[in-house]
């Protein structure tokens, strides 16, 4: 990555200072502290400054021997990846379609703005409320089951509608599709319409236009949206907890439990590993495109 201050004129460089300070105080500093604490020792009632690797070793204990199946850490990450991947895939397809419709099929700008705002309506309430509102709908005695029962399609309530991987992914998609729509929509708006027209005039099919023009030119938006969704889902434990009936594992929940039991260094070590893995995923994503160049 290249980042040269040299290109910024010297007399405006100070404009970056306030944000740099915020960034330092609320991001760099806590992160450095987390990394430091992850090497400390701890007891039930105290954390002890030290330089030990026990917290990391503890996380991967039993992961190499493979007796009794996967170790806790691998299982948890596998479960987290699973939610992450499917949420990403579904939000991507949905987000792309919505953005495509908004950008290319809605021609009047006021209507475009209006429809875009409609997409944001769910965000007027808190995400916990948006999540919990699914429960009366999907429960054993919920509306969906009652509807199917009354139609005679099923004779037993469907159990997996709630407190299952299905309900978790449903809620995650519901919560985070907008994070995909916004950047993709933004990229699409900047696609020069004459390129699309030229392709059309040259006899390109609808399919070809989408795959050869629209998708490559919205790649920035797709990657940015993907980064949003992946980072949010990797750290999520609230949605997985509430919608999964607390029976599904997530890395966030493990960290949360450790914090509650005053195992701060252990939680810090877990957080550092989660961070490394998430950064690695984002790194791989950005290999597909140079975001800085495209913006």
């Amino acid at each position, binding site marked *: 990555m290249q980042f040269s201050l040299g290109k910024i004129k010297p007399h405006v460089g100070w404009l970056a200072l306030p944000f740099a300070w915020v960034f330092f105080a609320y991001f760099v500093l806590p992160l450095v502290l987390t990394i430091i604490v992850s090497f400390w020792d701890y007891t*039930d*009632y*105290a954390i002890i400054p030290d330089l030990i690797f026990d917290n990391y070793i503890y996380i991967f204990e039993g992961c190499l021997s493979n007796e009794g199946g996967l170790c*806790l850490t691998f*299982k*948890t990450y596998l*479960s987290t990846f699973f939610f992450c991947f499917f949420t990403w895939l579904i939000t991507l397809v949905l987000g792309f379609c919505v953005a495509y419709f908004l950008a290319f099929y809605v021609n009047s700008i006021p209507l475009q703005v209006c429809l875009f705002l409609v997409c944001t309506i769910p965000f007027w309430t808190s995400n916990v409320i948006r999540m919990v509102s699914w*429960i*009366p709908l999907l*429960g*054993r*005695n919920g509306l969906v089951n009652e509807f199917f029962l009354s139609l005679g399609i099923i004779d037993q309530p469907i*159990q997996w509608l*709630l*407190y299952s991987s299905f309900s978790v992914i449903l809620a995650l998609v519901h919560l985070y599709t907008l994070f995909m729509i916004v950047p993709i929509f933004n990229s699409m708006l900047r696609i020069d319409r004459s390129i699309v027209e030229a392709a059309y005039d040259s006899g390109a099919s609808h399919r070809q236009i989408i795959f050869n023009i629209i998708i490559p030119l919205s790649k920035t938006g797709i990657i940015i949206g993907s980064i949003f969704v992946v980072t949010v889902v990797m750290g999520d434990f609230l949605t997985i*907890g*509430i919608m999964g*009936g*607390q*029976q*599904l*594992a997530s890395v966030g*929940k*493990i960290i949360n*439990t*450790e*914090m*509650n*039991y*005053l*195992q701060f260094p*252990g939680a810090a070590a877990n957080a550092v590993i989660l961070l490394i893995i998430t950064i690695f995923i984002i790194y791989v994503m950005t290999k597909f495109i140079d975001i800085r160049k495209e913006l």
Partner: protein
Amino acid sequence: MKNQLLSRRQAIKLGAGTVAATGLGLYAPAVISSDPITLRYLGTAVSMGDEVQKKLFEDTGLKVKFIAVTTDEVTKRVLTQPNSFDIVDTEYFSLPKLVPSGNILGMDTKRIKEWDNVTSIFTKGITPKGKKVGLQGTAPSKVMYLEGSNGKSFAGDVTQYATLIPTIYNADTLGIRPDLIGRPITSWAELLNPEFKGKAATLNIPSIGIMDAAMVVEAMGEYKYPDKGNMTKSEIDLTMKIFTEAKKSGQFRAFWTDFNESVNLMASGEVVIQSMWSPAITAVKSQGKDCIYQPLKEGYRAWAAGFALPKTTKGKKADAVYEFVNWYLSGWVGAYLNRQGYYSAVLPTAKQYMSEDEWGFWMEGKAAKGDIVSPTGAKLASAGEKRDGGSYEDRMGGVACWNATMDENKYMVRKWNEMVAA
């Protein structure tokens, strides 16, 4: 724990708010001291509704500034910021973490007027009528005393200095929906009965969940623990293995961490039998659903909380803390707690503030003669009804174990996480 207390507070607050609002205009403090002392009270607010604060000011001129947090947060604060409060209200099972830090002082029992009347469950581990209480786990009577005011370890014998001055406690059990089960439930083992496959729940708070799990395992006849509250690694493995198998076979509809989740699971009929806390039962009942806090033959899992003095509170502030604690035990608050289905530490004083019918219903297991109402005016039982589990003697005498901090806490949390991930 955390959510248990938080939600008890919410439950109390809901009603307390309305009472306070209507009462505000009518009351003026009887004593207006020129320089009222305000105590910073760190706790979970289980036992401190607005009306308690109002009554406190009327009677003593003391004011309380409440720092309401979760139980885990209380422990964190005591360990990391002992100068941020003047008095702390915490649970007995937190003591093995708090006492070695030296951040709380032993409280001088000679300055507690009603100390000799504190129920013998705390001081001797027996009920007032002499029945032995189960002492597995962090039983209050095992961690009641310190060697000296500055002691960092528990005393084996009775001393002048108490770790916590007890305030509130209760015996927890399984909650059931009798209308959906349709037969008597008498054992903890029913939680894993395949009959309730997909309709059972337990809580995802490891330190409490494991105790309930142990009650179940023992009731199934799989193993008899020397001490459920302090398991060895192999005992933890065994307990978690049984629960992991049950979870994999789909026994549990859900786990819960939040009081409201347990209420919703039960009220919606998703779950018909689960680990539950007493205010949650009341909340389900208030939705018009039949719900029982089912006494079981293996006994109850109990918890208890009390006041401690941080080492940073000195002089006039410390005097005020003792005055506050003495007021707390003098009866009015005790009656207030008893009316919510909890128990107060000093029973004789609380009795003076309760009607004969109330005392009979809550403490003696007698059928109510008239409507029984909560301090907030909500109707909890009609004439002729009896309390689930019966009298104080029956309920507290039936305690099998107490909420605990185990020596193998770290290992236990890991095994619990493994079960959740399985």
